[in-house]
């Protein structure tokens, strides 16, 4: 019975496919695989927005949305209807075609990456040979869409926002890829399904996730910091710093096009979380061996929602970084540490297993982390600010 519930969506698809004539089967199979992604993840996006607004409200000592529906849970529907019925304003001097294409491209790119994420046992749209590479390649398309949005609006603010966003995304894309490399090295494959399968199995009650190794937890933390920067979220939300450049690259968008950018931002955040789950948190595997009777897709979405909550928590906690802090942190801390992490993952493979391996690698990573962060502090060339008339 647990197996049946675990595979219920796969069985459902097979059951429907049984009624389809054989000529239409490839098309129908593709549609049946893609449709759930187009339904589930936007739904999750709606849940996340309400969770974020309520959670942030509580963190800031206010109620958050509480008028639409019981406890404000219908707020996303109200927002959606509002943005659909709003007037779509395009600046007169804008480049109309590029202005139209940018939100479309960004949403397509954000949805495409889900095709390689295994959301449960046997539940992946395509098991690509180079799945992780696909994720990063499609992720880089978002940068181009951001540029198109900022440039085509013919506004100084949107262009500045696009430049900031692209500079930040390029700087943090490299640590993101390099910190993901350790999981690829350990699994010996670029296929997301193989990476998840390599993390299956338990020692006692504890799972064999890559998170529970020194290089794994370093890689995971680096990956999540880079993912926060990639999705332009607090504390890396300078591309849309309200007090400086109003809203960044999508100021000149209104109505549903604006909503598309909003959707793409959250989809990107969820995609990065999903990839972190796949690479380091064992994908759809249960966290303890005695919980394996709960279906695999439940564990995937439970982990995903947990990680989204961490994103919200960070947003409610940390202030925005300055541009030079952002760049210094990216290039002088994240990048060297991810390279050292790759080396230590290689060493881990060749050292004899046991306590020695653990202590050597942990010491190496902790020491390099300490030295790099000290270097980061020493390099500040901004003087402490003094206020002459304020003391």
């Amino acid at each position, binding site marked *: 019975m647990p197996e049946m519930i675990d595979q219920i969506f796969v069985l459902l698809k097979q059951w429907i496919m049984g009624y389809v004539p054989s000529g239409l089967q490839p098309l129908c199979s593709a549609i049946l695989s893609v449709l759930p992604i187009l339904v589930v993840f936007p739904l999750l996006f709606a849940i996340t927005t309400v969770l974020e607004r309520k959670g942030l409200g509580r963190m800031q000592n206010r109620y958050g949305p509480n008028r639409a529906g019981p406890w404000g849970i219908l707020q996303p529907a109200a927002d959606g209807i509002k943005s659909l019925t709003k007037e779509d304003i395009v600046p007169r001097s804008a*480049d109309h075609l*590029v202005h139209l294409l940018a939100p479309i491209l960004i949403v397509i790119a954000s949805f495409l990456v889900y095709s390689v994420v295994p959301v449960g046992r046997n539940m992946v749209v395509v098991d690509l*040979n180079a799945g992780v590479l696909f994720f990063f390649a*499609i992720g880089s*398309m978002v940068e181009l869409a951001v*540029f198109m949005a900022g*440039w085509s609006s*013919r506004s100084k603010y949107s262009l500045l926002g696009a430049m900031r966003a692209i500079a930040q995304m*390029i700087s943090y894309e490299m640590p993101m890829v390099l910190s993901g490399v350790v999981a690829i090295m350990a699994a010996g*494959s670029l296929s997301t399904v193989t990476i998840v399968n390599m993390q299956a199995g338990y020692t006692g009650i504890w799972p064999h996730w890559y998170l529970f190794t020194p290089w794994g937890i370093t890689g995971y933390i680096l990956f999540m910091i880079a993912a926060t920067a990639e999705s332009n979220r607090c504390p890396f939300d300078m591309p849309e710093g309200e007090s400086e450049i109003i809203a960044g690259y999508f100021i000149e968008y209104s109505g549903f096009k604006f909503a598309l950018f909003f959707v793409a931002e959250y989809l990107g955040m969820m995609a990065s979380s999903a990839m972190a789950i796949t690479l380091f948190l064992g994908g759809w595997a249960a966290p303890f061996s005695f919980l394996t009777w709960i279906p695999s897709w439940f564990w995937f979405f439970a982990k995903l929602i947990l990680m989204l909550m961490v994103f919200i928590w960070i947003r409610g906690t940390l202030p925005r970084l300055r541009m030079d802090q952002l760049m210094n942190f990216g290039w002088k801390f994240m990048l060297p540490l991810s390279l050292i992490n790759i080396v230590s993952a290689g060493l881990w493979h060749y050292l004899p297993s046991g306590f020695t391996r653990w202590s050597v690698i942990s010491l190496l990573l902790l020491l390099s982390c300490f030295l790099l962060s000290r270097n980061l502090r020493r390099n500040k060339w901004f003087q402490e600010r003094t206020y002459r008339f304020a003391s």
Partner: protein
Amino acid sequence: MTLSFMLLAAIAILGAAAAMNLKTAVHCVLALTLGMVGLAALYLQLGAQFVGLTQVLVYVGAVAILAVFAIMLTRSRTGETLAPGSVSSRLSGALTALLVFAVLAWAILTGVSPQPLSGAQPEASVREVGVALMQRFVLPLEIIGVLLTAALIGAGVLAIEEKGGDR
């Protein structure tokens, strides 16, 4: 000559043609990117996943962004229209294109494949590419790495301010 091949080839050719004919520099870059994506899709259709996805990663993620940054930072006005090339530059361009096409066509028409082509698709998985890079082609790989590092350091040296910066 399947339908999908025709469509992808049309996308690649249209993108390349538009990159040469559009008036605005940024439009040219975007059209070029479209052509590159079409080319990557052709690689993917041939089963070369690694090459195709690397093509997307490099040309869409890096080269296109580099090009738009270069246009943004070097031109005084964004979206400046390009002046049409002079007759001599057009002639030399056409001559170069013709020569490249002739050499490629000659190579394809007269070249003999080292192994007889079999019906089965060649195995070009990521693992094969990695093994080949790390064993047979490890020396070229290292040389390219050194070259790129030198280029990176050179770019950094060029970008450092000469005076006043205590960075």
